[in-house]
């Protein structure tokens, strides 16, 4: 998969029209919507076919019902569209809240160069996963009921998750909007957004905490259906903690790809600090994984479930917990010792597999493990999942080749000065140009 992106320096957009007027804005949009670079690359062809096929399957799903394309049954009402697309996908989107927390609240400046890419990834993940969720709902036109309807199911964990999900998607949009403002050269709008950055991020972290935990909380109501090795009253906490290392590993994996594919868009500062960033992420990941495993062990001994480890489901549990959580933890520690970024990257992949296994186990595999006829996804369910991912990648690429996501944002110091003279003259914190120097040092 080679880059099909024509290198283009950010600040010098082709004869930028005045985006302040509607007409200019539309012209600019039309110009930006045009594809750039070669169109018939292998990547485009493959994902294009997947997306077209996915759309066809989705059409059948809406015409003939969920049963026509999925393997869902009365015994397994939720399949991979929930278990993978939503429950697993949201865990990986956790990178956005972790990183904004580190950079803006803890002021760990070295991660600043990757914040925008991670937030963009998170935002797109939420948009596309809620899209996937609509496919899975039997009556998606009623999805607004718990939002504006007269029937609020306050006592439902799903009600809580839905609300936090929706609000957090909005928050992510606000968090990514400085990049959009840069792209449109809306300096004033950007200033306004930046003033609420800290507040937005704090709201975002709060919402994330609750809905990451809430996704686990959903399964609290199925104590008799989830295998006792996985069911625990701590599921919400475990989901929250594992969303952190899911987020960390996703950031590492994603940076592996963006570095290779979009290398022409990276600035020097980014490249130089990258190794330091990776090792830092590994440290963060390792410490939360240790906490997670500690809780897991408590659960295991507390529930007197040690005997269950010697059953087939027990072996499977060990594959997940020992093979894909404990082992990566050890490998992270080794990687930090040896200062090996390669090992960090490999370990991130192992960790990600562990998180996928965990989410799939709770929502699909260890769910009703006793049933004689088990659920497995139909090829069409898998196809649609791939189509959702492909669409997300397309949009991600589109944004990343047009907006200043990977490189340093354009320097608006001159424009800001004029604004400053007009306005209250308050120093805008996280002023792009200056903080960039900090991270480069």
């Amino acid at each position, binding site marked *: 998969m080679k880059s099909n992106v024509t290198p283009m320096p950010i600040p010098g957009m082709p004869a930028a029209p005045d985006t302040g007027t509607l007409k200019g804005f539309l012209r600019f949009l039309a110009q930006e919507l045009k594809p750039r670079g070669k169109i018939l690359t292998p990547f485009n062809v493959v994902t294009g076919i997947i997306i077209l096929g996915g759309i066809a399957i989705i059409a059948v799903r*809406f*015409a*003939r*019902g*969920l*049963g026509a394309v*999925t393997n*869902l*049954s*009365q*015994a397994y*009402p*939720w399949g991979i569209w929930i278990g993978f697309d939503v429950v697993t996908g949201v865990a990986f989107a956790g990178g956005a809240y972790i990183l904004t*927390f580190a950079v*803006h*609240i*803890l*002021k760990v400046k070295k991660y600043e160069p990757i914040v925008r890419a991670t937030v963009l990834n998170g935002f797109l993940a939420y948009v596309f996963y809620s899209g996937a969720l609509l496919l*899975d*709902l*039997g*009556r*998606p036109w*009623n999805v607004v*009921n*718990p939002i504006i*309807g007269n*029937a*609020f*199911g306050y*006592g*439902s*964990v*799903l009600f*809580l998750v839905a609300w936090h999900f929706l609000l957090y998607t909005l928050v992510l949009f606000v968090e990514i909007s400085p990049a959009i403002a840069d792209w449109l050269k809306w300096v004033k709008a950007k200033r306004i957004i930046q003033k609420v950055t*800290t507040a937005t991020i*704090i709201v975002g*972290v*709060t919402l994330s*905490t*609750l809905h990451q*935990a*809430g996704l686990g*909380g*959903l*399964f*609290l*109501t*199925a*104590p*008799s*259906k989830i295998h006792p090795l996985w069911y625990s*009253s*701590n*599921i*919400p*906490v475990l989901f929250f903690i594992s969303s952190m290392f899911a987020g960390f590993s996703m950031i590492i994996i994603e940076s592996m790809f963006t570095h290779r594919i979009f290398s022409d868009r990276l600035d020097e500062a980014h490249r130089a600090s990258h190794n330091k960033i990776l090792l830092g992420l590994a440290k963060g990941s390792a410490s939360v994984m240790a906490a997670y495993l500690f809780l897991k062990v408590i659960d295991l001994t507390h529930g007197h479930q040690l005997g269950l480890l010697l059953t087939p489901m027990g072996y499977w549990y060990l594959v997940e917990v020992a093979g894909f959580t404990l082992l990566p933890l050890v490998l992270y520690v080794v990687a930090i010792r040896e200062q090996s970024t390669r090992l960090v990257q490999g370990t991130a992949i192992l960790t990600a597999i562990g998180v996928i296994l965990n989410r799939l186990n709770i929502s699909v595999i260890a769910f009703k493990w006793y049933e004689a006829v088990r659920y497995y996804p139909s090829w069409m369910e898998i196809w649609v999942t791939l189509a959702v991912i492909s669409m997300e990648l397309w949009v991600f690429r589109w944004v990343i080749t047009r907006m200043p996501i990977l490189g340093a944002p354009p320097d608006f110091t001159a424009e800001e000065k004029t604004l400053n003279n007009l306005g209250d003259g308050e120093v805008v914190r996280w002023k792009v140009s*200056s*903080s960039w120097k*900090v991270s480069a040092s």
Partner: protein
Amino acid sequence: MTISRRNFLKVAGAAGGVLLAGGARSARTAQVPQTSSEGIEFNGMLIDTTKCIGCRACEEACNEANKLPKPSVSFSAESVFEEKRETTPDAYVVVNRFPNGKNPDKPVFVRRQCMHCVEPSCASACLCKAMEKMPEGPTVYHKDRCMGCRYCMISCPFDIPKFEFDSASPFVRKCIGCYDRVAKGEQPACAEACPEGATLFGKRRDLLEEARKRIYRNPDRYRQRIYGEHEVGGTGYMYLSAVPFRTIGFRIDLGTTHYPELTSGFLSAVPLVDILWPAVLFGFNYLISDREEERGKESGDEE
């Protein structure tokens, strides 16, 4: 700065603790209430499996009362007993046959339908109140509210709600205790149809009384257990049996905690986290900005 670092960490710890405690399940088993919060006596049903003859008159009556499509095999066909059946979107009650451990010549017939739990998990799971527990006892379904998320199916300990997977405009389907008939003063269709009195409709309180009486008078005939008296916090429909419930298709591992209790700890932690978390994070941010400023001053590199 008014907030000291130590105090601040205390608050941070409290917020984390709330989240942790939120997951913890309380072991309290409350007394099963016999009335709604408004004081209306719950209706229920007592199903005596020792009396049931497997005639499936209840299935047929249910089919008619709810205007369900006619099944492909007639209601008098014995062949349906060959395999264990679950309720379906088109059959709210199904009768199953089990071998009788006590008396091999006399198989046990057990009907299966919504248990109309005293604290239904399906209703607490539903995010738009499409599943609702009525003060009179039954758990009903409002089709106009439902969004088809199927979380009620995940949550029901008895796997009762069924979904129309083959419809482009699907609904969840299950027994609603003949809510409209009962409101008119009639009995649920199945109870009215039963020729053997195996299905008794009445106030839950009275039915429990009756069940205890039967066990007391015929200790050899019945197991000393009323299924549904305490299971998952009590159910509106309850069963008597001559043989262990485990052997006639009942789950005996469901416990007595009512299911909404499983999530109540977590849910009550939510508003606290929503308030404490931002406070803690602003605190962090404040402390760290302060420190940054000092450091900035010392080293002289102005941001």
